[in-house]
């Protein structure tokens, strides 16, 4: 009897050891996503929404440019670009010898088709709202040259045409075609894609234009929805890369020799946004008081566990070369108190702040803010909403909310939410001087003059606007200690796998 039990146990262990051996021989790099939409998974870059789509389509499809963490456009499928004198027409030279996964050559027709799709409302692309305001048309000049025609002078067009949906797809392809047969020029090719599958498998693109890349034969995209399980599989070596880590986990992994962390500068803009046309926030004194109570560095240290940078109530991080000041606004409780009293709230101001974990860290920011606001005689009542549906039901519906934005270059950062014709006016703030400055800067080719306009615009937004930006959350990426080559993206909606490699695989 005891012999039999021993036999059974050794059999199980033999099976287990065989299995781990099989695992070690696996050359695939394994990338983790914390979001997985199941049946709504998309392989068409134009219609992607969540993080898993971003990783999938940025691995399969490449755009014309790659935007680095200093918000400078870098060549990708376009090798160079220049504009006419008033920056209304931009000519992009395409890289030669680039092949799609099916072996066909990339040419201007593919680029024109990909952007025309984004400008077609019937495609239902989220990029429509971003491109349509400035992009009039795109035409092929010759096989490897395309011209973007803007509606008005647009000096940052190379940055602005990079949206999360702007990966290049073959001429003539539609969402229905791409969902069945994903196709791009990216370092890995997505094979056997099925929405609702339990993971995605990619194989190396043998004709990839960057010689020697990618370093691995295949890649897997694995959803791990549970935070503890995600960290555990990285520590156990079962996965290689977690592109976006929440700050609490990042803190727990800091200094762990089994993990390489890459931390981006700047990062996601964490905001507390008030409707500037709704009482009590329509009173400038109230808005100023609400900004004065913030101890900005304390928000970074407590709410973001130190992974971030303090902010100055506008979406440009102070560390950026074109920020209007490098100094942080100081906390001044007494001044806030007197402003609140002047505005007619001698007994203190009570307000509701709606928040929810729709973006990780928002509730922490709200709680830190409520604690600080007390010193200015402002009583903040936090209303925690479910993360599900937060963007549908709370955001842009309630007068005081927390929100977050991916890091963006100045024009995109200002125009997406703070101008009068913005598509997502989360502060209901209207300031003609600000709008004029942003529009003017966008048409100013001289970089020094332009930066000065950006600075002026920031200062107005910071002093008068309806948005409080206490901090920017750094993007933290975690790799196994044997892996390298992945850069944490301060704008989380992009992903580049080509350089990522693990020395032991």
């Amino acid at each position, binding site marked *: 009897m005891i012999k039999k039990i021993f036999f059974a146990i050794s059999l199980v262990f033999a099976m287990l050891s065989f299995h781990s051996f099989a695992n070690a021989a696996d050359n695939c790099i394994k990338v983790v996503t914390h979001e*997985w939409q199941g049946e709504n998974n998309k392989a068409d870059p134009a219609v992607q929404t969540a993080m898993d789509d971003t990783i999938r389509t940025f691995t399969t499809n490449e755009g014309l440019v790659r935007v680095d963490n200093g918000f400078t456009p870098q060549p990708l499928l376009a090798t160079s670009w220049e504009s006419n004198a008033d920056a209304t027409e931009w000519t992009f030279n395409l890289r030669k010898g680039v092949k799609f996964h099916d072996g066909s050559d990339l040419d201007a027709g593919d680029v024109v088709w990909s952007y025309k799709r984004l400008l077609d409302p019937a495609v239902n692309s989220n990029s429509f709202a971003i491109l349509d305001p400035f992009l009039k048309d795109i035409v092929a000049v010759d096989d490897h040259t395309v011209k973007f025609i803007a509606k008005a002078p647009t000096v940052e067009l190379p940055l602005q045409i990079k949206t999360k949906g702007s990966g290049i797809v073959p001429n003539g392809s539609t969402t229905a075609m791409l969902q069945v047969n994903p196709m791009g020029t990216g370092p890995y090719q997505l094979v056997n894609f099925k929405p609702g599958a339990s993971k995605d498998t990619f194989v190396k693109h043998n004709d990839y234009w960057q010689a020697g890349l990618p370093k691995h034969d295949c890649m897997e995209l694995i959803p791990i929805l549970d935070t503890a*399980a995600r960290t*555990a599989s990285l520590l156990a070596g079962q996965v290689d890369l977690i592109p976006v880590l929440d700050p609490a986990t990042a803190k727990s992994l800091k200094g762990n020799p089994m993990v390489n962390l890459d931390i981006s500068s700047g990062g996601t803009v964490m905001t507390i946004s008030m409707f500037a046309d709704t009482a009590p926030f329509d009173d400038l004194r109230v808005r100023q008081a609400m900004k004065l109570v913030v101890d900005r560095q304390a928000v970074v240290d407590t709410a973001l566990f130190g992974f971030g940078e303090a902010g100055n109530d506008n979406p440009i991080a102070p560390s950026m070369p074109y920020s209007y000041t490098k100094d942080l606004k100081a906390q001044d409780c007494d001044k806030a108190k007197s402003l609140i009293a002047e505005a007619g709230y001698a007994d203190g101001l009570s307000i509701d702040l709606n928040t929810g974990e729709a973006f990780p860290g928002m509730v922490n920011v709200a709680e830190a803010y409520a604690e600080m606001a007390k010193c200015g005689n402002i009583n903040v009542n936090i209303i925690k909403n479910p993360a599900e549906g937060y963007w549908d039901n709370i955001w842009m519906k309630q007068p005081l909310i927390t929100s977050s934005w991916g890091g963006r270059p100045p024009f995109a950062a200002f125009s997406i939410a703070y101008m009068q014709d913005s598509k997502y006016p989360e502060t209901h703030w209207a300031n003609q001087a600000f709008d004029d400055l942003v529009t003017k800067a966008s048409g100013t080719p001289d970089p020094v003059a332009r930066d000065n306009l950006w600075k002026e615009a920031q200062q107005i937004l910071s002093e008068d606007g309806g948005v409080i930006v206490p901090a920017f959350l750094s993007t933290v990426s975690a790799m196994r200690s044997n892996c390298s080559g992945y850069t944490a993206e301060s704008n989380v909606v992009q992903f580049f796998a080509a350089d990522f490699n693990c020395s032991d695989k």
Partner: protein
Amino acid sequence: MVYLPLILKRIFSALITLLIVSALIYGFLEMLPGDVATRMLGRTATPETLANLREQLGLNEPALKRYFLWLFNIFQGDFGTALTSKRPITEILAPKIFNTLILSGCAFILYLPLSFITALLQAYYKNKNIDISLSIITLIILSLPDFIIGTIMIIVFVVVFPIFPAISLVGEYSDFSEWFMALVMPSITLALVMSVYAVRMLRDNLIEVLDSEYIFMAKLKGLSKSTVLIKHALPNAIIPTLNITALNLGFLIGGVVIVEKIFTFPGFGNLLIDSIKFRDLPLVEATILIAASFYIFANLLTDILSIIFNPKLRKQ
């Protein structure tokens, strides 16, 4: 056939229940703020893209009309297609149900010996050290929610002793050893959570039955303690446990949702969460109706079993 009228009656009431469930689900999901279009387009949806997608998905029809159209198709055996992926629902559901049935099957197979052996041991060694220590262990597990047990399993068997994978990804490409590795932790978690209730119930029933006169009689006849326990006490103590088991089968549906989420198991539970998240009505309806049918079937089965075990009920 004494059970036939009961079964027919139950099937009829089951169908009525399912019809009510389907209407309630449709109503609740319609009442919830947001619809499949807002979910598919995400935060950056604009009024134009929303209107466009709603038109393409046929959401502009009145909800009542859409419900009856859906019901009409169901009666013809057509579950329709998912709104999000436009794939046929049967094609989406079949592999997920298969995976979940395997997981629940494994959990149930572990559950039976786990609860019976523990309870028998406790009754046999009533108030001895074994009984007390097992009671303490069951109480601890009882007071821990399933997601905590799952997380503890992950920390112990993935981080401290790296034996099992943290996630249970299986599919048509998986071989036997992958299935085995994927199933161990989620099925043990499920089995543990289910068995603690049954253990406590069965132990108390056994001890109660052991005090009764006919057991005393059996003991006087000179039967051994274990024979008395298994042959005479167990059959009488088992009926209340059967009800617990039925409840557990129902729990399996709900518990599977949480456990699948923790271990990222590609089953029915994760599908249910995703489809509700995306307000994908036809998919939610199909998943919930299947869960409800399973629950109703489990209850019917225990009713029949308890009639088999209880001679008094059989004669009525």
